[in-house]
């Protein structure tokens, strides 16, 4: 089942990318999608029926707006630190615990953290994310866990888990 879903998704993606509805194009796309789904199907989401639940899409759209807002904030933050004459940075790597369980959710969380103000995810070991932070605002683990993961964790939990 998940192979078929991945096949359909990659065919749609191919058609968007080439944007031509001619027969040779569709044949090439079908062959490429079959090869892709054969190779990468086992990495795809295990329960594909979750893709049919509409409330997940609603939370995904909410998450998208939150994400764009955080991303803009991140850029202004970096711009401020770069252009400031004294360069207010206090970098370091902190350890953050996440409540998310599945691999896909952790991947999405790590990617979101990379785009939020001043943080890059370095590694994930079990439930712990290691985050490089350009300005450590607090020494207390609970406080900085809230600052880093608080904005995204609840939305990702609703989207994926």
């Amino acid at each position, binding site marked *: 089942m998940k192979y078929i879903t991945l096949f359909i998704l990659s065919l749609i993606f191919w058609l968007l990318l080439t944007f031509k509805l001619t027969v040779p194009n569709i044949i090439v796309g079908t062959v490429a999608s079959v090869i892709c789904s054969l190779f990468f199907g086992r990495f795809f989401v295990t329960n594909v029926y979750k893709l049919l639940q509409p409330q997940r899409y609603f939370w995904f759209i909410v998450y998208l707006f939150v994400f764009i807002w955080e*991303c803009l904030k*991140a850029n202004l933050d*970096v711009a401020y630190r770069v252009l400031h004459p004294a360069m207010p940075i*206090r970098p*370091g790597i902190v350890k953050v615990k996440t409540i998310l369980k599945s691999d896909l959710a952790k991947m999405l969380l790590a990617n979101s953290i990379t785009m939020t103000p001043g943080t*890059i995810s370095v590694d994930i070991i079990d439930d712990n994310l*290691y985050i490089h932070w350009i300005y450590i605002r607090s020494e207390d683990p609970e406080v900085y866990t809230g600052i880093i993961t608080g904005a995204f964790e609840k939305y990702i939990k609703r989207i994926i888990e």
Partner: protein
Amino acid sequence: MNNMISLIFITIGILFNLLGCIGIIRLPDTYNRLQAATKCVTLGCCSIFLGVLFHFGFSDAGVKALVAIPILFFTSTVGAHALIRGTYHFGIKLGEKSVKDDYKDAVQ
């Protein structure tokens, strides 16, 4: 009108790319430089793609630009993660200003 919007988006994109480049030069160590490189350059490129979308409309090139935005997001974040993790495992130390390093215990 569309031309105007696309010009504004492309200008913002170039501005953010410029800020990212200044960051790469000014910030002290590899890790901080990667911060500037990932964030500013990703948003700058996305802004340029949006400008292209407004310029061409929903045609051949415009849709390609729109599809490129999520691809760029995922590849640049994953690339930044791979680079920063590789840097650490290669043995490059955090800069002098660093105050905390939790990852050291996890690596050993």
